[in-house]
């Protein structure tokens, strides 16, 4: 949505126009639940979190200053509710700690085994280059079955990587908006995005060449 569309929708909401709220729910609710699901242990908890977030949105409508887009503000509220819920359920470390840990572990985009070692003539070059994804990889990737697999792959990512990839690559938010929504540093977002993308490509390679 453009800034002008945001402002129009916001003023309709503030005027209490139910159809404006319905429009917002229809556009965002299922995405928010998918997003929240990455923080909490089951679907029901994710639904609860998002329900709570919507109440937070209503309570904050008049104070919202429009420094971010309406939808990224709503994602940010959802992230905060989801973090609180995850901490309360005490199943995981705080999100910021998870993010730090995921970003600081030593990890390669591609297994080192797939590159030639220092005893070869071309150390660091492909020993086992990426396997072909077939003649029309883009068509293949957009098939429902592959899409379902892709979704499953993203759901298997570590929590912070999953959240960053979802916001940046599935929802298309700019890196600066991703930092704001998740309250993470630019560096962490960059590293987490890289790790997530590398894993997803690697998992797709396995799936598409099995």
């Amino acid at each position, binding site marked *: 949505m453009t800034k002008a569309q945001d402002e129009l929708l916001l003023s309709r909401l503030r005027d209490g126009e139910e159809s404006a709220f319905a429009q917002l729910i229809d556009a965002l*609710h*299922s995405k928010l639940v998918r997003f929240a699901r990455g923080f909490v242990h089951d679907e029901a908890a994710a639904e609860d979190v998002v*329900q709570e977030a919507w109440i937070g949105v209503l309570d904050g409508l008049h104070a919202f200053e429009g420094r971010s887009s309406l939808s990224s503000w709503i994602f940010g509220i959802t992230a905060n509710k989801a973090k609180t819920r995850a901490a309360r359920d005490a199943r995981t470390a705080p999100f910021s700690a998870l993010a730090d840990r995921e970003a600081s572990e030593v990890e390669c985009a591609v297994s080192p085994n797939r590159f030639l070692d220092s005893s070869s003539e071309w150390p*660091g070059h492909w020993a086992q280059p990426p396997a072909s994804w077939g003649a029309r990889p883009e068509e293949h*990737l957009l098939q429902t079955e592959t899409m379902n697999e892709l979704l499953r792959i993203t759901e298997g990512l570590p929590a912070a990587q999953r959240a960053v990839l979802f916001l940046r*690559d599935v929802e298309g938010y700019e890196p600066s908006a991703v930092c704001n929504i998740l309250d993470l540093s630019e560096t962490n977002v960059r590293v987490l995005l*890289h790790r997530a993308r590398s894993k997803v490509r690697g998992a797709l390679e396995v799936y598409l060449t099995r």
Partner: protein
Amino acid sequence: MMDCNELVELITDYLEGSLAASDRTRFDEHLRICDGCTSYLDQMRATLKALGNIPAGSVGQTARERLLNAFRDWKKTQ
């Protein structure tokens, strides 16, 4: 000269447009002579395109009703 195992670590910065100009030149030069890394970049681009096309679900009827009720309650307090 850039090695393949370095390129795969710089690919996100390359695609995000945040790679330093000198690294970008080395990256492009490497691509010109390396089929493996060209495939890798193509696959990463295809992956990103597919991620951007994951279909959104839809809101369940019960949740939708509950939220619209919450909106009506909120409106009364305004």
